[in-house]
């Protein structure tokens, strides 16, 4: 491993300790009542059978410190290629047609395009300074980019690869998402602590909803009835009624033995049936499984260290999470709600996207 920069010879190296804790936790998990175990086993077996002729997908992971993108084959669960990209790659997403992977390289002030066929960087987009996260419209024609350094959202024509304009938002724009009907763009600003509702046709802010401190990520329910916004420092996920622009509820987290400050929600993944949400809790090293109807956490899954973002395989059988500090990706079996695999990637893995 090349990540010797944070090691200290005189100090007990933290990774094994954490690994141990993880194994211990898994052992405790294993000691669940027998019927649950059997249920889980049978679930797992059923799933294994169903999966047998596995359909392989390709996942791309941005490694913020290595300046690389790791390519993972979801059949063998191995890294098949490591692509050199610009400086500080973070936000990463496939174009709607599946031909390119867009990766925001913040310190180079651009978004690079990786050709999914050749798996190499072929072009770049004129984003504003320090792009971090972005969202594209349903047709895959317009890209909206959050520029952390100058409080704007940049609008880019993806076909012409040209900049169309900027929208002024709050301090440190970060989270970006578009409503399923494509009419509303959501941007969260980390120091202003708001979700800005932007009309995609007029490109004007139509509403601002205050949420808890440092909102990082926004995700709509597929039926558009709710917008979920994670607050990293606030430690909550706010649920907003997108019609009324009101916070109508909050998901809160409590993990016995873990201090409150360590629970820092970032990435959110919602199943297509809108029944289950997965929320990455950062340095709590866990993914919370949330029942969307009751807004209650039903389970915490122990993954790698400082988990931030995630992506489902298109068949929704697996959920892959990026664990920044342990430099790996955890694979969660969605139906079984169990971590089944860990894959080493580059240093400080940040974002992830999977081919449609």
């Amino acid at each position: 491993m090349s990540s010797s920069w944070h090691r200290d010879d005189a100090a007990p190296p933290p990774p094994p300790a954490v690994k141990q804790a993880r194994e211990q936790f898994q052992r405790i998990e294993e000691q669940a009542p027998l019927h649950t175990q059997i249920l889980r086993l049978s679930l797992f077996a059923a799933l294994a059978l169903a999966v047998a002729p596995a359909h392989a997908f390709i996942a791309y992971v941005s490694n913020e410190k290595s300046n690389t993108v790791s390519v993972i084959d979801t059949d063998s669960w191995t890294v098949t290629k490591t692509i050199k990209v610009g400086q500080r790659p973070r936000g990463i997403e496939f174009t709607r047609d599946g031909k390119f992977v867009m990766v925001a390289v913040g310190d180079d002030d651009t978004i690079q395009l990786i050709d999914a066929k050749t798996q190499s960087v072929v072009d770049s987009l004129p984003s504003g300074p320090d792009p971090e996260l972005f969202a594209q419209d349903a047709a895959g024609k317009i890209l909206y980019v959050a520029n952390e350094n100058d409080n704007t959202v940049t609008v880019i024509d993806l076909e012409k690869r040209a900049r169309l304009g900027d929208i002024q938002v709050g301090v440190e724009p970060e989270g970006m998402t578009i409503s399923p009907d494509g009419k509303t763009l959501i941007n969260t600003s980390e120091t202003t602590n708001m979700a800005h509702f932007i009309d995609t046709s007029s490109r004007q802010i139509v509403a601002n909803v205050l949420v808890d401190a440092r909102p990082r990520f926004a995700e709509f329910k597929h039926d558009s009835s709710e917008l979920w916004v994670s607050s990293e420092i606030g430690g909550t996920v706010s649920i907003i009624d997108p019609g009324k622009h009101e916070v109508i509820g909050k998901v809160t987290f409590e993990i016995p033995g873990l201090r409150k400050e360590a629970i820092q929600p970032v990435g959110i993944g919602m199943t297509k049936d809108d029944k289950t949400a997965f929320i990455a809790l950062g340095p709590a090293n866990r993914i919370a499984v949330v029942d969307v109807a009751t807004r209650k956490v039903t389970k915490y899954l122990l993954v790698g260290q400082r988990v931030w973002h995630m992506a489902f395989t298109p068949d929704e059988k697996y959920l892959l999470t990026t664990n920044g500090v342990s430099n790996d990706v955890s694979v969660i079996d969605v139906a079984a709600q169990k971590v089944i695999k860990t894959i080493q990637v580059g240093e400080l893995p940040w974002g992830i996207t999977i081919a449609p």
Partner: protein
Amino acid sequence: MIRWLAGLIGFGLAATSALAAEPVAIGVGYLGVAAARSTLSLVEQPAENDGVAGARLAIEDNNTTGKFTGQRFTLEERRIKEGEDAVQAATALAEKNGFIIADLPADALLKVSDALRERGTLLFNVGAIDERLRETDCRANVIHTAPTRAMLADALGQYLVWKKWSRWLLVVGSHDEDKLFADALRRTATRFGAKIVQERTFEDKGGARRTDSGVTLIQRQMPVFTQQAPAYDVLVVADESEVFGAYLPYRTWDPRPVAGSAGLVPRSWDASQDQWGAIQMQNRFIKLNSRRMTALDMQAWTAVRMIGEATSRTNSGDVKKVADFVKGPDFSVAAFKGTRLTLRDWNLQLRQPILLVDGRMVVSVSPQEGFLHQVSELDTLGYDRPESKCKLK
């Protein structure tokens, strides 16, 4: 909680409709002393706008948010020269400003806080690290964003103990504040099980900090001063007055690291801090002020951001409402230190991680792993509630 939530929901609507209305004006005063302190290192010489530059950035940040909430923040700066009355200056500032950011020595701050109590002005102490302002001399109208000496000493001590450098040679300057920092370091050693193997005092005999052939002399003085010490792991120096501390690294008789006022230094902030999104903050600061951000800048930024956070959460510029919210259980502020910062309700001190820096890099951030606390690990730094002598009034 429910009331707060309801307020928040109401606010969602209000924020939308407030766009067209006249913004609410929120005045923030900044009161500091005109004289800049002198440092041994030329590169550490503070800028004239040290502190207030951070407040200015926070005013900009608050106003970006204010565009959406219908609030407009202004900053009025006042510097008092030697011999000028702090109370008079503060009273004049309080005419137009409900909030005052104060970078004052402890005694002046106390006079100001007592003079402004009736008026209801809320003060933020961004400069004074004295323990007594949070203990026997604590005041209900003063919020402290500056860490205390005990917090700084504990942050350093935790790291040294974690590193197993537990035998300390303590070298103390001859000025009062040096002695106060030494007191804090002794307390830290006792709390975390380090041993002070010997103490030495470095007398300030006066003299210039800058001379044309200073290095030659220092190179002879420092080894002699540190020789014949009992076996020790690290030299811990208390020299807040900047008389000799920075001369010690690389010049000790025994090859040992230096920490405290020089070498590895505990600070609330550093220009090299780039974790937890801080790079955005550092960039914004450099863009606005054409220099790097110091700990004092950060302490002032945090104070003004706390005001902005509270005005946006309460949807009000009313000083009493804001003060109540900041002191209340639902308040927290994000300040690029990897965790939410909250107030110790017993003495209004901001809980915060402390960086350990060497002038070029952040070496570590305390509290260190393994220092546990039943409420918040941040309360392993400094005086905790059960030890506190503060009675807020």
